[in-house]
């Protein structure tokens, strides 16, 4: 089972106990960032595409109810059954009731971060429904009884040898086998049998088109298609912010999505679902789960533009060195750190601080979310809400006071230099986190101000 630590800094300490593994994790994700750079730098109009995508999404957020109603009308006319869920619980109940109606107790599911957010697997399992994740990475973490650590690459934290061990245990592959081709073939065989015997398939949704009432699911493995085409019942679940006005807007987003995510020009499959097959039922469940409240927050609403490409995770120097589980949420990394406090400020108060505010995330974001500025703003909100530790509240108050008084500042600065010079053991010890892996700066004999008074004024 994954770590149950719910504080980023503590989980990061755990993650960093095995330094070669941190190096491996960092390099693996940096490789994807480099692929993303190559793919995006080859498109001369890349920055315009980002701007275009951002403006389309801003338009969507400003007219969300209108586009949702338009989609509902068109989708119904196409024969899709539309559901609305106010929160995670209602979403889970709706999915369960559809399955109950058809007496189905086993279902395949392709990747959907929304269902992770809603805890659907756990809910259905508690109600006697077996769910098999069909995205290979999702299946691996499901076998390991772990949550995904990354929204595009769910098992990026696992080495192939560890996956070999899991497959040996659950799928009967040879002990010690870790050849990716061999393991993938084994998973394929296992999943093929599952696809053929399941009557219900759940997929996520990347884009829903208001103009036509169709929705688009992007995968590399074709698992969403395999599930949806073979099943009697196809249930698609999506957050309300995923709607797009027009079909031609897809061209902008499909060009951006895969390049930002993995450096591919496009995902292997971009499947459009519009009309159910004969004798098939097609459902779409729209989920709010805090989104409309989030939409009302001026400083934070534009994080709802997110298309879940994970470019911000791959580029984040902190994510690469702390791992996805350290963010203790379905969506990790910089975007998770600005989305999750909208759901629960108290439980996620550590996350906006899990950043150096370097700004790389905002630069790779294909829809130009001001991620690092929002991290800064969340910090202000959280501390104003009184969610900071008492000691920090007191020390910041003291610091603010001393630094607003020039004479006090001069004395304190001199005192600090004297301490460093004559009693360095006061700060150079285990209680000082700086000193754990770094030396303190050597104190100079005088401050600049002292020098300036002697030499210039």
């Amino acid at each position, binding site marked *: 089972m994954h770590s149950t630590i719910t504080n980023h*800094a503590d989980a*990061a*300490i755990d993650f*960093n106990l095995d*330094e070669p593994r941190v*190096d491996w994790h960092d390099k693996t994700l*940096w490789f994807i960032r480099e692929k993303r*750079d190559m793919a995006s730098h080859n*498109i*001369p109009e*890349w*920055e315009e595409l980002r701007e275009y995508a951002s403006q389309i999404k801003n338009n969507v957020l400003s007219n969300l109810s209108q586009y949702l109603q338009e989609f509902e009308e068109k989708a119904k006319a196409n024969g899709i059954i539309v559901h609305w869920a106010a929160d995670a619980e209602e979403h889970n109940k709706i999915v369960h009731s559809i399955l109950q109606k058809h007496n189905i107790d086993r279902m395949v599911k392709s990747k959907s971060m929304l269902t992770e957010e809603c805890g659907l697997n756990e809910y259905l399992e508690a109600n006697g429904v077996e769910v098999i994740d069909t995205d290979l990475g999702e299946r691996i973490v499901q076998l390991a009884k772990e949550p995904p650590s990354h929204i595009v690459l769910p098992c990026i934290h696992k080495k192939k040898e560890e996956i070999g061990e899991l497959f040996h245990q659950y799928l009967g592959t040879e002990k010690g086998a870790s050849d990716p081709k061999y393991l993938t073939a084994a998973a394929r065989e296992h999943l093929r049998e599952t696809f053929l015997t399941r009557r219900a398939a759940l997929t996520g949704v990347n884009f829903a088109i208001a103009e036509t009432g169709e929705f688009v699911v992007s995968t590399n493995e074709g698992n969403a298609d395999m599930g949806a085409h073979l099943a009697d019942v196809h249930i698609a679940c999506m957050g309300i912010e995923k709607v797009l006005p027009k079909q031609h807007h897809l061209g902008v987003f499909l060009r951006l999505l895969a390049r930002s995510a993995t450096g591919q020009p496009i995902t292997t499959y971009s499947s459009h679902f519009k009309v159910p097959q004969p004798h098939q039922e097609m459902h779409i469940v729209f989920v709010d789960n805090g989104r409309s409240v989030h939409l009302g927050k001026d400083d934070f609403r534009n994080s709802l533009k997110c298309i879940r490409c994970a470019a911000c995770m791959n580029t984040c*120097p902190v994510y690469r*060195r*702390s791992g996805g589980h350290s963010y203790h949420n379905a969506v990790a990394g910089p975007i998770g750190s600005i989305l999750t406090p909208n759901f629960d400020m108290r439980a996620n108060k550590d996350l*906006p*601080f*899990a*950043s*150096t*505010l370097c*700004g*790389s995330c905002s*630069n*790779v974001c294909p829809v130009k979310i001001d991620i690092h500025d929002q991290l800064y703003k969340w*910090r202000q*909100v*959280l*501390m*104003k809400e009184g969610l900071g530790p008492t000691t*920090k509240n007191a020390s*910041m*108050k003291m610091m*603010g*006071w001393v*630094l*607003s*008084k*020039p004479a006090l*500042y001069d004395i304190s*600065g001199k005192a*600090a230099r004297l301490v460093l010079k004559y009693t360095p053991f006061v700060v150079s010890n285990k209680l*000082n*986190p*700086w000193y*754990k*892996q*770094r*030396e*303190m*700066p050597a*104190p*100079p004999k005088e*401050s*600049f*101000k*002292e*020098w*300036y008074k002697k030499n210039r*004024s």
Partner: protein
Amino acid sequence: MRVALFIPCYVDQFYPNVAIATLELLEKYGCSVTYPLKQTCCGQPMANSGYEHEGEGCSQLFAENFAGYDYIVCPSGSCTLHIKHHLHTEKNSPEEAHIRKTVYELCEFMVDVLKVDNIKARFPHKVGMHQSCHGQRGLHLSQMSELTAEPFSKPGSLLSMVKDVELIKLDRIDECCGFGGTFCVAEEAVSAKMGKDRVADHVRHEAEYITGADMSCLMHMEGILKRQNSKTKVIHIAEILNSY
């Protein structure tokens, strides 16, 4: 040209030579420089920790100290960015708006305002350039590797005028060093690991010095280099540009 010298608090206290080099450089290029003696700190440590509201006193003091100059110049991208974006007191005076508009990081001031095209300095060493994030991504001192855009570098163009400097190549040209203000102690494990990785890139490429426009990042990397007993040293870019 009346220039106010804005020296970050930790530079004042721990790295006076960086401030002296900055002052001497500005004087060399004909600026009339004043160092307002009552300056303390820009308030960034509080603000980045979520306590902008505790920095009100700092902001007011800053606004008083730096009112009435043509330009304000600071040898730190990070502190400059803080003033540019976050100096807002309750008074919300026109003086504050003037300060936000005329505060410059040293390299951008030399390139954009002074339009320096000749530097009489020599530094015969292999040097690695650290791009501090706030200066780079916040003030656009250099192009950012994430963007599809023409490369440029203001600190790089200044260094290229210094005699005998050999700039080394890095595997990751603009990855964060992990200092991050209070992040460096609040998230010590990740901060130190980021610092170790950043330093290793420079050392692997045989840098004798790591330079940059922000002493805070350099202080963090210096702490790591010293702990490793490394021969590689850190030096602020003002000290290279002012070296003879």
